[in-house]
């Protein structure tokens, strides 16, 4: 009995430890160590980013209290339902949960959103972008690491902020309204490389979306999602970035897939006017024209694509061979 440490002593030991730890952090601060949470201190110094309201809370965002280890499905359901999908954390478990790892991978969070008709987009690793998306009405899934001695990866959904108080509001775990200081959030968020994602209905584009990354997100959505939804998404994207050739290629591919060859051709002709050297445009235009039975008309386009060479040379040669074959058969007939 004498050898056992009384419970009280354990408590004071812990407290002393905690106090010392806090002391270390304060010391680091006193030494001007802003690098502990660089983005928060930047936000504090430069003031409220232009165009953002002082305070936002998306109070209507649904809340799904998580069951053990199920913060992935819970966070994803929160984002999906708030984007207009109909689902539940239980329905998402077989789509994102990994039993042996007792958690969910980021890649699968992005992939599963597409299966529910939403375009998933990983935000740039910027605190300001996080605030901008919330201000635009989009809840943001963030990956935090709450662990100290071992990893404690955790998904939460940021749904609000108060700039003057410097706090973020999250749906997190079993807490419907967790208020976390910017600095604390940054400390646990930066450990995932500031990873954040949004799930958008096909007719909306995230306010902070970068053109190239968004087009990649759309191409991923097109692979999985419903073609009509992808068509809507490409049309909206062309409204925002009218010059984007990949959006035109995507829109034409969706038209082609839906059997609307005339529309696909029209989009590709427009694309060829804007980007006369795009091998993909020339190849797909030739294929689309040929698919409508006008093989001779398709030939000059595929010859131009073939002359350009490049990474798609193999695909172009295949298309050319197909068109020549069809042309030959037509002559024989």
């Amino acid at each position: 009995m004498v050898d056992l440490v009384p419970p009280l002593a354990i408590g004071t030991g812990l407290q002393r430890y905690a106090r010392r730890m806090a002391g270390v952090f304060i010391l680091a601060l006193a030494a001007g160590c802003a690098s502990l949470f660089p983005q928060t201190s930047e936000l504090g110094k430069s003031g409220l980013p232009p165009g953002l309201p002082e305070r936002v809370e998306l109070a209507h965002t649904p809340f799904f209290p998580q069951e053990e280890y199920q913060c992935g499905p819970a966070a994803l359901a929160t984002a999906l339902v708030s984007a207009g999908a109909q689902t539940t954390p239980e329905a998402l478990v077989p789509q994102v949960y990994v039993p042996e790892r007792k958690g969910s991978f980021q890649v699968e969070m992005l992939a599963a959103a597409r299966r529910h008709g939403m375009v998933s987009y990983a935000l740039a690793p910027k605190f300001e972008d996080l605030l901008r998306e919330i201000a635009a009405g989009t809840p943001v899934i963030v990956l935090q690491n709450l662990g100290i001695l071992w990893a404690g990866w955790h998904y939460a959904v940021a749904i609000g902020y108060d700039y003057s108080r410097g706090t973020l509001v999250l749906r997190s775990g079993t807490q419907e309204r967790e208020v976390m200081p910017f600095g604390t959030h940054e400390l646990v968020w930066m450990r995932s490389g500031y990873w954040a994602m949004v799930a958008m209905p096909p007719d909306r584009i995230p306010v902070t979306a970068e053109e190239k990354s968004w087009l990649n997100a759309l191409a991923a959505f097109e692979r999985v999602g419903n073609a009509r939804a992808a068509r809507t998404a490409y049309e909206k994207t062309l409204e925002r970035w009218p010059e984007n050739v990949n959006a035109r290629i995507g829109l034409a591919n969706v038209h082609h897939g839906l059997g609307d060859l005339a529309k696909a051709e029209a989009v590709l002709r427009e694309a060829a006017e804007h980007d006369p050297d795009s091998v993909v445009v020339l190849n797909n235009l030739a294929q689309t024209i040929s698919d409508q039975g006008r093989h001779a008309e398709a030939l000059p386009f595929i010859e131009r694509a073939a002359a350009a060479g490049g990474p798609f040379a193999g695909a172009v040669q295949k298309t050319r061979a197909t068109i020549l074959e069809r042309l030959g058969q037509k002559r024989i007939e």
Partner: protein
Amino acid sequence: MKSVWARTLCRLLMVLMVWSPMQLANAGMIGTDQAASVATQADRDTLFQFLGRSDVTSQLQSLGIDPATVKGRVAAMTDQEVQSLADKIHSMPAGGDSGAILLLIVIGVVVWWIWFRR
């Protein structure tokens, strides 16, 4: 642990085996995902990623995922996502923990109070 070289060699051999069927699957139109990620070796990359899919499928199954659902999960990923999972599945974070760590919160509050409000 299989060596990187052995894996690369296996993949190369399998590439040679599946090269033609994959090419035939292309219906003449160059896909948007390919166009969006113009890699220098677009065709070969596609094949590596095709192999990545079966790799990832078996890896996920070994992590306890029901074989009946694993196919749909992998199908929803892009080639790059499959590749990143295939390469890093054992080191990738899997978010699942709940519960905030009190100490961090306390430190955070102090930090925020000193830094943000002064």
